């Protein structure tokens, strides 16, 4: 673990310089300890680090670093993550890139859906846009590069993959990930108290739903 200065009122804690489940668990455990401290303004956990903004009227830089250095995380504790289940309609009218993935990877469309929906993913980071959760790891059989020509507008709630990561676009936005389905779950919902159904460190499982179920749950084609 290494603690570095970030700005006048923030520091960044680095765990290891590699993306892995083990590092993600450390980030999650350390995060829980930081949340207990007084005078914390904002916390941004990510793949291998946590940025912490603190109130400089509560701590000087040295005092804050000292506190952080003395936080103990029990690396032996098991992975007790919450599992969030997300319904996905993998139909071709919303899965804009399934056909080209199928051609490139020499897999049937139903194989791709099976591979994607049978894994459990971990939320490594949330950013880019509110509720945009970076999840991994995607099975290497369906590891796809980003599109050469990003789309100008990806429909809201699209499920996408890029390299070893998968994500849902919470709002319509430009983007270069491969679109493989669409969900009815709002990833950034202003009507909810917690805004976003997942947090960094949670686990996510996608389950396929039929077109009928998708539409019944308010899905938009």
């Amino acid at each position, binding site marked *: 673990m290494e603690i570095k200065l970030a700005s006048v009122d923030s520091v960044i804690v680095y765990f290891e310089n590699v993306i892995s489940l083990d590092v993600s668990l450390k980030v999650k455990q350390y995060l829980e300890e930081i949340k207990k401290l007084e005078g914390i303004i904002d916390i*941004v956990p990510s793949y291998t680090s946590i940025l912490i903004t603190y109130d400089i009227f509560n701590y000087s830089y040295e005092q804050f670093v000292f506190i952080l250095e003395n936080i103990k995380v029990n690396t032996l504790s098991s992975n007790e993550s919450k599992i969030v289940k997300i319904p996905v309609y993998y139909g071709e009218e919303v899965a804009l890139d399934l056909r080209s993935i199928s051609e490139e990877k020499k897999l049937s469309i139903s194989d791709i859906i099976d591979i994607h929906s049978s894994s459990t993913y971990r939320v490594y980071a949330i950013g880019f846009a509110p509720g945009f959760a970076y999840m991994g790891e995607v099975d290497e059989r369906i590891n796809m590069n980003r599109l050469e020509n990003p789309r100008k507008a990806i429909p809201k709630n699209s499920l996408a993959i890029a390299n070893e990561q998968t994500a849902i676009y919470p709002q319509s936005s430009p983007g270069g990930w491969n679109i493989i389905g669409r969900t009815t779950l709002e990833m950034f919902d202003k009507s909810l108290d917690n805004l976003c159904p997942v947090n960094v460190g949670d686990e996510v499982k996608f389950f396929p739903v039929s077109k009928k179920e998708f539409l019944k749950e308010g899905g938009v084609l």
Partner: protein
Amino acid sequence: MSGFEIINPGILTLVQDKGRFSYAHIGVTSSGCMDEYAYFWANKLLGNAKDCNVLEIAFPSFSIKASEDISISITGADLSLSINGKYSKPWSTYNIKKGDILKFCKSLKGVRAYLAVKGGFLLNKDFDSYSTTIKEGLGAIKGRALIKSDFLPYTPYKHNHKKVLKEKYIPSYDETLVLRVLLSYQKDEFEEKEKEKFFASEFSVSPESNRMGMKLNGEKIIPKISGIISEGIAFGSIQIPSSGQPIILLKDRQTIGGYAKIGSVLAIDCFKLSQAKNNTKIRFEEIDIKSAQEKMKDFYLDFDN
């Protein structure tokens, strides 16, 4: 209801306050007034609570009509405010009468003007803050800039004692800015000669700047690495992609990103930077964390009533 009717919404007029905190972990940016110095003075001149909402006016032609008497303050950029056709200087309060028309005519000095009313506008907070972030759709008025059909309600107020800020407290918005920098983050991923170049060079504000960040033109500062594993971005971070063109990340920045950062600009200096017009000359000098924190504390303590 009493308030301001919008005659012309301007190009980018936003309701703001100090910002939205404790949601960064799900990707929500801090938002808030770009120039906190002008923001705090706007409220202090009126005797408002420190966290009252204000309007941040980034371009001229914004124009409103008062439906009832109200005391206002104007701080920040001089956008040539006229009240019923008469030029009215910023850094001052004004007693506005029913039917008065306010119009920001043209940009004279600085970039962003702030308008506060006695008691603040009667709007609702969105996730603990009035601040507007257009890309997130969050903020007091549906998360967007003002439009003509909006109405800005307030509680009428008469006979405020007029206050004009002393000249020595009014920023001059010079054509050259020296920004104090805390070397931090990936500072070791820049070779000594690149760091020397960074502190010795003069940069200028690029027109491609906005509430997310200020892009700088000038010498290329080349990091040893092309990118990093995405991590949290602090206010004022100086991000340098492999193209070598620095960008200083401000209130509407992305919460995480994967470019190398050489350090961060002291927040007080970011407030000054937010008033810098295109082509303003920028230089950097180093500051240590102890003095930086003292300066920040002094800044905030000055606004405690």
